[in-house]
């Protein structure tokens, strides 16, 4: 790896930038590894990076059936925040937000983390009460979140329509100033480059077709399209396809996979300074550094692996956007796409050990996994390295669906994660 620095940049400028090496080499699989990560999204690559950098396991392979960062890492709306209600959630997501800080420097790769603030709008009395409860709970957990009046919301985000006779009047909002966005592709690329430099093999276009288990039930390795690869430790970070991978080990999971859509407009000059979420009318939006408005829509109502959703979901979201931001009613939308999100019954992730020895899982992030990328990667790596969960992800075990200790953010987060 050649480090990015002012000195190297100037040096390369004298030879037409011909000396920059590839970010990561495309590796053929070795016969055996100390640990295998299934899924080269942000979470999986992050886990490989932290295994190598923090937990001393460098003989690691990341196996990906498609291309690196081509799943939900490349399909989300890049929002980062940690203002969740419950203690377990606040600790988990804030662990990630703390890692986002300084990640560009750590990886020597500009992931463009922008703390532009996440503003969640309150449209009715229930919203106001619920958000204020969130703010108080967050402050007790050391997570910044503050209440803004409607006028303060307008000052923070000028395109907002706060007139009292609007279809969805703005009564105020909860603002997390540390929240914001990051460049999603750069996150995957940065982790891949840094992990690769530490000796991690990244193997793309190589689907896992089976998980081999020994007589004692423990994992022995994975069957892939390019042959058997042995490993005593396998971490699965396969998002929407987790149920499929887990079935290879004989496990059924409390997961359902749904299409979740997003869309971008034509690029325009900077007009939208922050992230705005409106859970009541189900719309959320930010402006990318390229100038596109990035808009998140809802999930379809049925299970699907098709990576595309129905158009009436888009229509519903745009109707809400046009009501809250009349300024954008004549904006043209350029692209829509869908990703497959794995949703748990309590809308909180599953991150830890499984009943199969040597098999670890990071799944169930549902509609909000991007914000947790560094945290999920770090905690999955910790769990694999120690064969035990960190205290932050200990509550996110699989047993909670048996003993009833759910982390019920489905009710607490008021929808859009």
């Amino acid at each position, binding site marked *: 790896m050649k480090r990015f620095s002012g000195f190297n940049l100037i040096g390369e400028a004298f030879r037409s930038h011909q000396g920059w090496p590839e970010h990561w080499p495309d590796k053929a699989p070795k016969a055996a590894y100390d640990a295998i990560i299934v899924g080269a999204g942000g979470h999986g690559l992050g886990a490989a990076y932290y295994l190598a950098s923090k937990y001393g396991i460098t003989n690691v392979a990341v196996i990906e059936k498609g291309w690196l960062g081509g799943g939900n890492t490349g399909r989300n709306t890049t929002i980062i925040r940690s203002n969740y209600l419950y203690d377990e959630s606040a600790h988990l997501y804030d662990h990630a937000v703390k890692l986002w800080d300084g990640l560009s420097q750590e990886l020597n790769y500009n992931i463009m983390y922008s703390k532009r603030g996440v503003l969640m709008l309150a449209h009715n009395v229930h919203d106001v009460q619920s958000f204020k409860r969130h703010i108080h709970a967050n402050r007790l957990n050391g997570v910044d979140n503050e209440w803004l009046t409607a006028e303060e919301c307008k000052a923070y985000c000028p395109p907002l329509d706060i007139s009292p006779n609007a279809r969805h009047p703005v009564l105020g909002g909860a603002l997390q100033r540390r929240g914001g966005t990051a460049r999603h592709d750069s996150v995957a690329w940065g982790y891949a480059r840094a992990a690769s430099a530490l000796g991690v093999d990244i193997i793309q276009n190589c689907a896992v077709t089976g998980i081999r288990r020994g007589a004692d039930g423990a994992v022995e390795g994975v069957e892939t399209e390019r042959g058997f690869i042995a490993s005593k430790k396998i971490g699965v970070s396969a998002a929407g396809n987790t149920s*499929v991978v887990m079935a290879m080990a004989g496990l059924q*999971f*409390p997961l359902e996979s749904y299409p979740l859509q997003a869309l971008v407009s034509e690029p325009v000059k900077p007009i939208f300074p922050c992230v705005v979420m409106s859970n009541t009318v189900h719309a959320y939006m930010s402006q990318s550094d390229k100038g596109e408005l990035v808009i998140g829509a809802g999930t379809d109502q049925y299970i699907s692996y098709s990576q595309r959703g129905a158009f009436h979901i888009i229509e519903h979201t745009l109707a809400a956007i046009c009501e809250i931001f009349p300024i954008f009613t004549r904006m043209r939308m350029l692209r829509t796409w869908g990703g497959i999100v794995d949703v748990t019954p309590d809308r909180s992730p599953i991150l830890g050990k499984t009943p199969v020895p040597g098999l670890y899982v990071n799944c169930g992030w549902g509609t909000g996994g991007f914000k947790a990328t560094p945290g999920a990667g770090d905690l999955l790596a910790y769990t694999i390295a120690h064969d035990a969960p960190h205290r932050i992800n200990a509550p996110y075990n699989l047993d909670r669906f048996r003993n009833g200790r759910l982390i019920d953010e489905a009710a607490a987060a008021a929808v859009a994660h």
Partner: protein
Amino acid sequence: MLLIHCPYCDEDRPEVEFANGGQAHIARPTDPSTYSDPEWEEFLYIRRNPRGRHHERWRHLHGCGRFFNAVRDTVTDRFETTYKAGEPAR
């Protein structure tokens, strides 16, 4: 948007008339007080979530209002068949 055949109305109608009811053919406990924790987990939370052929319930919410079952491929989203509630799985 899906086009769904309601076996009661015997018509193909747009998806917005329907509400998805999740995995089909999950039997309710006949004697709940005897159910163990793993059995409750299985009944309440564990789902098949297959990549491919899937049995699911739909309700013709803005039509006849009745529940029925469907077989759909979750990769292509194409319906194989729909049939009335109470009929055996196809």
